[in-house]
């Protein structure tokens, strides 16, 4: 059951109605049952994994809090990390490691058969594993108290809007809100509805429409030309942003209608002037998780410049691996680590260079150049993220420098980009940019409200329905990209 499915359109209103009609004490058990039902619609056979992770982390956190001996606390934390990460590693990385090991052995002339297992990747495992680990680590650090009620803790782990693809919530943000008895609020309903409308618009009217043109290049790299690769990669940058932030908007909106505020996960990432700033605006819940639970424990920037660079690279390599069990994701992560290292090492020299020509980092020209530069660097890295394999990625990379013989008209035709498709893409993206500005503006100024009060929501909902019909007619509907992580 994905957000863009008929089942969810039936599921959510029922859950919402029950949430506000039931007595306040019955709400959270209902949400827990609904969340597990939501998860079981994906993979009923693997529900024991999320339940097991929840139980182990809850038991461990209780032992950690009650024990006064440091070695007991540390042992329980280590065991919990080992078990939870072990499960994640097994289901997500076993086959990747097996395939890589076989490849290395064969590279040295050895003969070995494949020992991959037929494993189903549990949906959302990366997200709920990190969410439970942040809870246990925060208890260990003394930042939060344990939740005494196991089933309430289970709701924190499995809360359906953010279960499958985040945001990765922190216990101090979500648990108190789940406990608070929210009453129906018109303001929350309007804010939540706006977020859902924008989210569905991003996913259906932009991301899914664009995906077919991206797939035409990335699924057939042998026939791609340089211009096609550039267009497809730039479109993928838009697609993945709209797909993932669209999901987050829908998740956040669903929760907001119930009075629960999930953390912000995106903040106009493509307006970033540096790659470092990009990561403070993209998938904020994950980057802040890595900062708090990996980068700072490794020493952060407190142990000298060289160690800081190593820590940055470790974080981004792990981040790349977190996204997927493939070398393309590792390369993508390594590229971002490299960008940050080079950016940090050259910062002072760049600032000195700017001051010599009478400019500062605050001038519009410099900001514009930096934003374009950041977009180019990030988009280049997306090539590896999207490519189906490392061989495809390097094939596409090579073609960027060699395959310039195909004319622009032939390139667009090969990608399926006719006049209608180009205009539709342009108008849907421009509409989204303006709609996003409007919703941001209306969040600050309640005196005007196009999207909901003036009935404007009908225009956007109708656009979503028509685009959905178009996608269905061409069999182009798809699930959310981040569900595979």
């Amino acid at each position, binding site marked *: 059951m994905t957000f863009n499915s008929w089942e969810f359109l039936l599921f959510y209103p029922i859950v919402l109605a029950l949430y506000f009609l039931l007595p306040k004490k019955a709400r959270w058990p209902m949400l827990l049952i609904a969340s597990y039902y939501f998860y079981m619609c994906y993979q009923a056979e693997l529900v024991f994994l999320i339940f097991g992770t929840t139980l182990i982390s809850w038991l461990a956190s209780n032992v950690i809090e009650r024990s006064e001996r440091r070695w007991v606390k540390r042992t329980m934390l280590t065991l919990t990390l080992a078990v939870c990460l072990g499960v994640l590693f097994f289901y997500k990385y076993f086959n990747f490691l097996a395939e890589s090991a076989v490849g290395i052995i064969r590279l040295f002339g050895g003969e070995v058969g494949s020992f991959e297992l037929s494993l189903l990747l549990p949906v959302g495992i990366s997200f709920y594993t990190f969410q439970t680990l942040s809870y246990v680590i925060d208890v260990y650090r003394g930042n939060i108290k344990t939740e005494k009620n196991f089933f309430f803790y289970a709701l924190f782990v499995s809360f359906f809007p953010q279960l499958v693809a985040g945001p990765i919530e922190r216990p101090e943000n979500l648990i108190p809100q789940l406990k608070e008895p929210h009453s129906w609020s018109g303001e929350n309903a309007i804010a939540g509805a706006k977020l859902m409308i924008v989210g569905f618009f991003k996913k259906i009217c932009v991301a899914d429409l664009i995906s077919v043109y991206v797939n035409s290049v990335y699924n057939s790299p042998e026939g791609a030309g340089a211009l096609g690769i550039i267009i497809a990669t730039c479109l993928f940058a838009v697609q993945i942003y709209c797909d993932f932030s669209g999901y987050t908007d829908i998740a956040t909106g669903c929760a907001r209608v119930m009075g629960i505020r999930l953390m912000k996960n995106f903040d106009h990432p493509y307006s970033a002037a540096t790659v470092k700033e990009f990561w403070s605006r993209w998938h904020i819940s994950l980057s802040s998780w890595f900062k708090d639970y990996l980068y700072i424990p490794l020493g952060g920037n407190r142990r000298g410049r060289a160690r800081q660079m190593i820590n940055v690279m470790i974080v981004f390599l792990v981040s790349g691996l977190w996204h997927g069990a493939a070398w393309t994701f590792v390369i993508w992560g390594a590229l971002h680590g490299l960008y940050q290292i080079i950016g940090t090492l050259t910062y002072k020299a760049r600032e000195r260079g700017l001051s010599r020509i009478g400019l500062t980092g605050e001038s519009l020209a410099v900001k514009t150049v930096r934003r374009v530069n950041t977009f180019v660097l990030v988009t280049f890295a997306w090539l590896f993220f999207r490519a189906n394999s490392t061989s495809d990625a390097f094939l596409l990379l090579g073609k960027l420098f060699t395959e310039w013989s195909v004319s622009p008209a032939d390139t667009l035709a090969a990608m399926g980009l006719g006049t209608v498709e180009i205009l539709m893409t342009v108008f849907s993206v*421009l509409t989204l940019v303006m709609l996003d500005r409007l919703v941001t503006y209306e969040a600050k100024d309640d005196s005007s409200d196009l999207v909901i009060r003036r*009935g404007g929501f*009908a225009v956007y909902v109708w*656009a979503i329905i028509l685009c959905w*019909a178009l996608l269905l007619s061409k069999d182009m509907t798809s699930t959310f990209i981040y569900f595979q992580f």
Partner: protein
Amino acid sequence: MIIFTSPAVIIISALIIILDIAKEFTDGILGKILAVVNICLHISLIFPLMLVKAPIAEAVLVYMCSTFVYTASYLLFSVVFSKEAERGGER
């Protein structure tokens, strides 16, 4: 494209553009009526497209253009220009 050959599509599109701008300069009951009529026109644009049997992709394109005009008119007249007017008033 077939959409440019349909008088109904052209007339409704022209009305939509006029109302998109007019509603931003009209207050009170008339403003609300214009806003509602405007939204109804936007949504009903699909029907003349169906009548001329426009390909679904073209129909969606036309609707997306109208949505763009709707959003742009509000952003321009109610947000951007009102901010300029406020700044002018402050001077």
